[in-house]
């Protein structure tokens, strides 16, 4: 189900079309990026990443920042450290997604560079929104990219396409317990007023129809 609204961004339909035109086929090309050279990966361990190289991390951070946007006053996925969360998950329990992320992020970066001569750092929010929208649309049209590892895809569990995978993992980085590297300073939980790990809720706390005030707490605080 698409609930993404084409016209809500500045520049609306027009800039979207332009972008689509300019990028026609660009994202589809991702499908044939199979010959990706792992040995060419930058070895930089920016920001203490265990998996992403610098350009991958930057690109994913840019996308995450549009999926759950924010700024210093109203922190979003970037401030939550969602990419840090994904990085740590990929270096551990989500290892089966490593290749998907490599191929997708590398491919996107290449497209930006080769076709538009830009790096992700040069894109503004609107352009990034178009990029995310494009990823989402592509999911809906056809996910024959075959980029996801077998597990969830085959079993019909969890994310079943590129955009859904990225979105799900970003949201996990926003809403999971901070022990996993995201949701820093509880900014994800603060945004929805969810207090986190508590052993006890009292009747008084449960039987109000007002926002609850309870300290934000991680399982590590127990």
């Amino acid at each position: 189900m698409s609930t993404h609204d084409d016209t809500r961004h500045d520049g609306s339909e027009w800039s979207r079309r332009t972008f689509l035109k300019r990028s026609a086929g660009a994202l589809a090309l991702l499908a044939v990026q199979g010959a990706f050279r792992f040995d060419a990966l930058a070895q930089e361990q920016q920001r203490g990443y265990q998996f992403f190289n610098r350009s991958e991390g930057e690109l994913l951070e840019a996308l995450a920042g549009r999926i759950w946007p924010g700024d210093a006053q109203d922190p979003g996925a970037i401030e939550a450290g969602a990419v840090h969360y994904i990085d740590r998950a990929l270096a551990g329990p989500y290892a089966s997604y490593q290749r998907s992320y490599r191929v997708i992020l590398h491919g996107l970066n290449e497209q930006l560079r080769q076709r538009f001569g830009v790096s992700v750092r040069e894109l503004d929010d609107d352009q990034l929104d178009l990029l995310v929208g494009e990823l989402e649309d592509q999911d809906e049209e056809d996910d024959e990219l075959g980029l996801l590892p077998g597990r969830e895809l085959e079993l019909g569990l969890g994310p079943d396409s590129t955009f859904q995978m990225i979105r799900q993992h970003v949201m996990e980085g926003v809403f999971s317990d901070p022990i996993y590297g995201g949701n820093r300073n509880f900014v994800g939980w603060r945004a929805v007023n969810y207090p986190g790990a508590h052993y006890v809720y009292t009747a008084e706390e449960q039987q109000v129809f007002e926002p609850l005030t309870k300290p934000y707490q991680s399982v590590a605080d127990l």
Partner: protein
Amino acid sequence: MAEQPRKDVVIVGYGAGSGPASVELARAGYSVVALERGPHWTAQRDFTPSQLDTLRWVTRDGMIPDFDRMPMTFRENQDEEAVPTAYLMSTLVGGATVHWSGQSWRFFEDDFRMKSTVEELYGQERLRYLEEDGASIADWPISYDEVEPYYERVETHVGIGGWPGNIQGRIRPVRADEGNPFEAPRENDYPFRPLRENATTLTYRYGALELGLHPFHVPTAILTRPYLSPYGISRPPCTYCTFCTGHGCWNASKSDTRVSLLPAAVATGNFELRPGCHVTRINHQNGRVESVEYVDTNTGEVHTQPGEIFLLGAYTFQNVRLLLHSGIDANGKVGQHFMTRSSPSANAIFNDRYLNGFNGPAVQRQGIDDFNGEVAHERKLELPDDEFFIRGAFMGSPSQRNPLETYDQVPPGVPTWGREYKRYLSENLNRYIGLQLLTEPLPYEHSRIDLDPNYSDQYGVPAARVTRRIGQNERRMGRFIFDRAVEILRAAGASQIWGSGEVEATPSMTHDTGGLRMGEDPGDSVTNRYCQMWDVPNLFIGGGAVFPTMAGKNPTQTIWMLSYWLADAIVQGRVDVDDAESFS
């Protein structure tokens, strides 16, 4: 291959279906061993405090690691090739009861005589469409009256609390506005009360009352006071931590096979639990099971375990698989009449209040049975032919709405990412209610579990292959129940309501029942009334696979009840373990 010392009773899988029998048989002096493929986790060592973590236990299915290891395939029609699919299969001592929600109840009286009931109420003509669809509705070979004491034993011994709705025919005997007035009559009250109300349950309750319905707090297998069970096991009450469904309880307040029954079995000195032991075959000869073969996954060694009586409690899919793989299917009925639920969904946002739905276990829940079973039969009689359906659904209002479990719940028209999405969730996540609509599925001739020809597991046991499509009854019920849900949510004051009454066939949704139907006729069923296999009478089935029909309710109290029921039949000599056709 090492042969283990012989036991009187050998249990395969230690979940709901085997727990009660393990206790009762061990107490009666039988030597009992339970082979359970999963690990033995304990509240203090494994769940405190790690359990208070949605990512680990729910998002990443920390308790249900078996998607890859136990393949299952699914198709809607038997001329299609089945494809691998997902299902929630527990793998630990206590089975799925460890991470279940704990909504726990008795079936209606007429659930046990479903076929006769609908024929009496509606007549053959009105039911013609069921025949066309291949529905195989049936009566159970046992009646509610016979099993009532066993239901009560589950409540007192496992630990289930509620408001009574009907004690010996007296409706709402304890409090005029509490308890489910449509429940089957009980001899005695529950041993304790259910969970308290929260903003979500109060909201739902209000809506139901506005419409003249009969809301009640659902009975729950969660303690609300310190409780000493008749087995002498004491446990503390729930603290409403909210990390409940999908989690093991850190406080041992949630009743399950592991905390309510296992200690009682162990205390007899006659019971041995072997975790990490995966059964791969049932060895039988001349209509008798001789032993089971298993892999001790701790060492990789293969063993056989001989015994006199065998109880298969490895959950519906594994039970059927193991039987078929072992060549036990004399009359060709193993795997037939499989049932699982396909439910409509109804969601709402309440602009005028916060509900903070995260703060309570999932079964802190009000619900109604006004449209369940045949409670609403008069209204259904009025329906036009193409909307008419039999049976119905429990409709309730779950809690445990943590952000990681609810961030996808946005109405159509709201984007699923970006500024607008974030604004929407920030304002509305804690104003959200999503209902549970437990529509009753029917059994069908074409709905079955068999062995997949293409996929098998690491032990060479073929995957369970599920063939199931839904019929007109499920579709019509889905739409009707959805419309009622919308009315309740509206009456409760919802500002926006969304969802769908259209249901889709699914292979599994944790209430997977049927497949090893119990019946009166050895030619037409798999077990007799005591869950005893017709063709191998020293083999009993624990679990919902024996249900001839389902209910608009969760199955587990009935699974536990049947486990007590079959154990008593063995202990009291009501069954002959050499002949399933002679019993009293």
